């Protein structure tokens, strides 16, 4: 069944080609996009099931590892695949519901569909890649597509924000590329499984340099403090579905890369303390940023940054419990952060803005919207019984298990961050949903189509499912963590 492995990349790319050729026929484009992403989801789910029996490895072009590129669908990768393709599908439906056709300056669909599909292909490629340089290519694919999406419509704010995003990303790409060049220089290979052994043989100082370069490159993409400030400046300006999928997925690809490389290539926790300090400052600075905001989208961008700190906390612990919690939290956060930004899009259409000083009374005027906001908001704040709580609990348990002073500090930091997240979101609820606005919203509200609401609701429910299915899911992330720490299952699968 290994022939399934390349499909999550190949299908979206073929879809992109088809939508480009069909660019004058929006309906056909839509049909292609939806069916391609649905198929991707199905294939991903199948891969998840198959990967339970051990990583599926494909040597692309029939060139055996380490000569050519391998795609590795292990449980971590397939988990990420399933969640990300589900999210991308929902966001696609949402954006289709949002309508907009050619002629609508804000949402040029003929650009949107192919680019969106390419973005998806980049994300899936990054998850599946078992080759360091191919990981870079995967990043470039998703970045290139994201550059297009973030500047969609080309308004002044989007250009400004897009510039920040593009230039920072370009710098990170340069650093990544240089890092890969250095790794190849030092080891003579790009195959990650082979790097396991060759990197182990390097002197400590060299390893540290290489590790630092990769961490820096991924840290920018994952938005770790102090490499994170670009994110809240750029994400919120894009169209709602774009912001949503960026917030949900793109930073997580960075996190995924960190998890993968830190466990596989650079185990042993040499930089654990550094990661923990970064995690703490990311959490705290990020959430303080959220508290200081008065616009829902920006606020959510800051919570995004802040919660990356949680993920990093788990990685920094480098224990099975920590990694397991980090992976679980990553999956949860993809869904919940996307959902909230989609809701923010609905709010924008209903209230004419996402600025807190212009909103109000939505709980009365839009009760469904209120529910759609409240549930994921509580989930994000880590209120039980939602998955955000379970992930946070796992991290706190892992931190307590580690027991160092720094770990305790992070446990405290997690708690404070959680509280401030709740504070920030409750304030949104107070102001946007409860308060009667001082002035009537100037612009007549845009109707949100049923498809938009439904796809958001599906994501909300998906977030709830994490709670219901937390038992088996957590067991799964636990085996993922064990495999990550053991390294050998991966290596044996790639280089038998």
């Amino acid at each position, binding site marked *: 069944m290994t*022939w399934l492995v*390349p499909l999550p990349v190949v299908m979206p*790319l*073929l879809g*992109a*080609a*088809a*939508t480009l*050729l069909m*660019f004058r026929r929006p309906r056909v484009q839509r049909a292609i996009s939806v069916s391609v992403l649905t198929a991707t989801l199905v294939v991903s789910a199948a891969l998840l099931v198959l990967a339970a029996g051990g990583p599926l490895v494909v040597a*692309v*072009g*029939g060139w055996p590892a380490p000569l050519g590129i391998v795609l590795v669908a292990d449980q971590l990768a397939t988990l990420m695949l399933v969640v990300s393709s589900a999210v991308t599908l929902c966001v696609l439906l949402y954006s289709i519901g949002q309508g907009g056709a*050619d*002629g609508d300056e804000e949402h040029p669909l003929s*650009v949107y569909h192919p*680019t969106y599909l390419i973005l998806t292909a*980049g994300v899936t490629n990054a998850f599946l890649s078992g080759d360091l340089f191919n990981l870079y*290519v995967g990043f470039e694919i998703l970045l*290139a597509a994201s550059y297009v999406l973030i*500047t969609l419509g*080309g308004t002044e704010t989007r250009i400004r924000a897009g510039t920040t995003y593009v*230039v920072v990303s370009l710098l*990170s790409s340069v650093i990544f590329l*240089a890092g890969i060049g*250095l790794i190849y220089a030092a080891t*003579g*290979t790009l195959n990650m499984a082979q790097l396991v052994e060759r990197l182990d043989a*390097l002197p400590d*100082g060299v390893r*540290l*340099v290489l590790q630092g*370069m990769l961490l*820096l490159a991924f840290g920018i993409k994952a938005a770790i403090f*102090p*490499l994170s*400030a670009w994110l809240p400046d750029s994400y919120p300006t894009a169209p709602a579905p774009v912001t949503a999928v960026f917030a949900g997925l793109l930073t997580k690809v960075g996190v995924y890369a960190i998890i993968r490389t830190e466990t596989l290539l650079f185990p042993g926790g040499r930089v654990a303390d550094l990661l923990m300090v970064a995690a703490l400052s990311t959490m705290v600075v990020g959430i*303080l*940023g959220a*508290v200081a905001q008065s616009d829902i989208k920006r606020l959510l961008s800051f919570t995004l940054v802040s919660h990356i700190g949680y993920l990093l906390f788990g990685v920094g612990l480098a224990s099975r419990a920590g990694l*397991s919690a980090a992976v679980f939290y990553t999956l949860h956060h993809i869904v919940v952060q996307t959902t909230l930004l989609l809701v923010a899009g609905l709010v924008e259409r209903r209230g004419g803005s996402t600025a807190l000083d212009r909103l109000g009374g939505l709980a009365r005027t839009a009760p469904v919207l209120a529910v759609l906001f409240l549930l994921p908001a509580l989930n994000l704040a880590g*209120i039980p019984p939602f998955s955000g709580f379970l992930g946070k*609990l*796992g991290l706190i*348990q892992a931190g307590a298990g580690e027991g160092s002073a720094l770990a305790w500090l992070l*446990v405290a930091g997690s*708690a404070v961050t959680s*509280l401030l997240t709740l*504070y920030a979101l*409750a304030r949104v609820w*107070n102001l946007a*949903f*409860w*308060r*009667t606005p001082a002035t009537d919203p100037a612009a007549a509200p845009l109707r949100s189509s049923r498809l938009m609401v439904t796809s958001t609701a599906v994501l909300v429910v998906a977030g709830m499912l994490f709670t219901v299915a*937390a*038992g088996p899911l*957590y*067991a799964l*992330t636990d085996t993922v963590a064990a495999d990550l720490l053991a390294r050998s299952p991966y290596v044996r699968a790639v280089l038998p």
Partner: protein
Amino acid sequence: MLLGAHLVAAVLAPVLVRWAGPRAFYLLATVPAAVVGWAVTHRSGQWSQPWVPGLGLSLAFRVDTLSWLLVLLVGGVGALVLVYCGSYFAPGTEGLGRFAAVFTGFAGAMLGLVVSDDLLLMYVFWESTTVLSYLLIGHTGVDRPNRRAALQALIVTTAGGLAMLVGLVILGEHAGGYRWSQVAAALLDGPLLTVAVVLILVGALSKSAVFPFSFWLPAAMAAPTPVSAYLHAAAMVKAGVFLVAGFAPMVVAAGGAAATVWRVSAVGLGLVTMLVGGWMALFQNDLKLLLAYGTVSQLGLLTAVLGFGTAGTALAGVAMVVAHALFKAALFLVVGVIDKAAGTRDLRRLDGWGRRAPLLVAVAVPAAMSMAGLPPAIGFAGKEAVFAALLDAGVVGRLVLAGVVAGSVLTVAYTARFLWGAFAGRPAADDATVAAGADGSLLVAPAVLAAAGVAAGFGAQGVGRVLSPYADGFRGSADHLALWHGPGVPLVLSVLVVAGGLLLFRLVPAGRSGPRPGGRGYERVMTGTDRLAVEVTGATQRGSLPFYLALILLVLIATAGPAMVAGWPGSTAVRLWETPSHLLPVAVLIVAAVFAVPARRRLTAVILVGVTGYANAVVFLLHGAPDLALTQFLVETVTLVMVVLVLRRLPGHFSQRPGAWRRRIRVGIGVAVGTVMAGVGHLAVSARQAAPVSQAYPELVVPWGGGHNIVNVILVDIRAWDTMGEVAVLVAVATGVASLIFRRAGRLHRRGPVETPSDPPRDEPVWLMAGHTVEAGRRSTMVEVVTRLLFHVILLLSVYLLLTGHDTPGGGFTGGLVAGLALTVRYLAGGRYELAAAAPVDAGAVLGAGLLVAVGTGAGALVLGGQVLQSAVLDLHVPLLGEVHVVTSTLFDVGVYLIVVGLVLDVLRSLGAEVDRHAAAAVAGEPAPARKEELV
């Protein structure tokens, strides 16, 4: 279990309310009533089901004495309050459905909290009550005080909850599980236990509104009265008390520092709360607020007593829990009745309600007596038991007793004030509108509660027997509970308390406006947080791209720099150059790069950067990389054209350079980055030990890949997956360029050749398709003729490079670039119409077709049963022509070729033709930013 019923009921509630109006509450009341029914028939039980084993979280429930008691209270009071709601709310009240749902959900959460056997599960319910109470307190959210109070309650109790969670995790991780029994069996010791205990206590105290967390409770009185009655009498605040009661046996048994800390905090803070709360209650004019402070005071008492940790106090404490739930709920509901009837709760404005509503008085007085600790209510029995238990508890106990007595005096006093304020006085003659008195149906619930209080008082011994298993968890033995203990010190104390209380009541002036709910500390913390947030964000979130980039680069320097120094190899053989001929291009490159930095004219900088690119290409060639050199040359040329296409519209000079010190910082960072990168480069190269994987390629590329040019075989075969991704990148950016330049999305169709040039003048020989459309001054016959002659030759070269790339330098990229440059030449010679004529297709379609071919080749291999992107080598013998060597990966390269052509075409259509059109429009008078300077 019944929890499920609550959940279902909560979900259905809005529907029910819409359908049946307030009467739906009666239906909803059956759910907690069923709980009571269950509790009456079952005194204990347990059930468990794993949930998240990885976290030690299971759906474990069990009922013991303490939780049974609370189940009864939660269910009973819940049912009664719901019944009350059925009459309290007018039909059509806004947000009633939501209210009903949240309320029912809250009752369920509270039930879950007390029956959870798993500490984490308990926390789940704990936080659920917090959130639901937030929604209940905020209610419709229209009023600012409601919103603020709700937020305050949420934040304070969640903060406590989080502390508690950490405490629970500490205990649970040590014990290896989170069941009450597991934790108790493997209790931690040492300082960590103390930390855990303190954290758990923080949670409990914040929930129970014990000092210093008391302030949120009175503020939360903004909620509708039924909410206050339930949350602040029977439910939410009892969660904290429940936790104290639950942990007390464990902690006290553990002894040591933890127990001491526990006792001092719980008892000390409890007493303080009791006194302060009572004192505050005494000065309130709002009846509801008075009761709220009373609640604070009572909770202090409960915490102190339950936290004290002897068998006697334990029994007395749980008895007081029962008492408090009954009388406080009843009294709140009474206030609700008064409020609803009189339209005010201010005791200065209420007059003569005792006479108007004798039934109300009949309900209120027994409940109040229980509160004041007068016989025959259960409150009396409880208080007596407290006195007695403390008397038996040594010096410490007596000290505590003194506090409790003082608090009780206050209790009596504010009870008196309550009764007096609510019912005393003569009705005003003109007050006819409300004379109808209280609605009888509203009185059912408080009456039942008050009656239950009295009944429990009479049945105190039975109550005591039922509750005593809880007290058995402590050392020592408890006195039994009784309404009449006979004369003794407790009775004396009771008498003194009543007397003192009444005296105090007389001393307090009636009309003085009471102190407002406190919470200045909370305010200060929250505004402080907000200020901190603004300061930190203002400092880190500068909004400046250069700042962010500099930060990233500084991190690079700070991480890679020291690591580089630390890992510097002791001795390495360093060559000065690869070959001496390297030196020339390297020197050119360095000079051009260095001078590009300070250049003030855009084009100068561009040209200098271009020179570094060309020099780079030469370095590639000398290094043994002809493919790279060829590609770099072509890319550099394409880049130069693209840049010129844009720069023709931008100002010729860069704007003002930054000040000297900023420049120095930048140069400093630049030099540091350069040094670090060169350094780490050296480090990495000298670390190489193993042979590169590519060593195997030379012998494999011909048999497996069908080509001699290893680089090309890598690109289209060995690592074709990379190339596939790379062309996807090109497709994306090409699409993006078009979307940025074509101002309106609809004009994207102009990526296709929508414009047809006018016919050329008759008398002129035609060299290009649209050469005549160029303005006369820019035309050049020479250029047109040469373009005409060379265009096809260039295309020929591109096809040659495409086909020959597998064996010599070339390939899809270079071929595509050359073909793209052929189109560029046409555009340069003949303008945008010429471009349209040269490539009468849509750029997007070319890109799509290329992607389809490239990816399709890969997928095709999959379909044919091979590996994705697997290639095949075919050697055909064609008659006459001889051997034809075909490699399927060439088809992949054709896809690459098409995409590169598509990219260049797209750029020409966008940055070339469409920008031309913008310029023409600007000339024609469409508003566009004025050009200050020209290109050259």
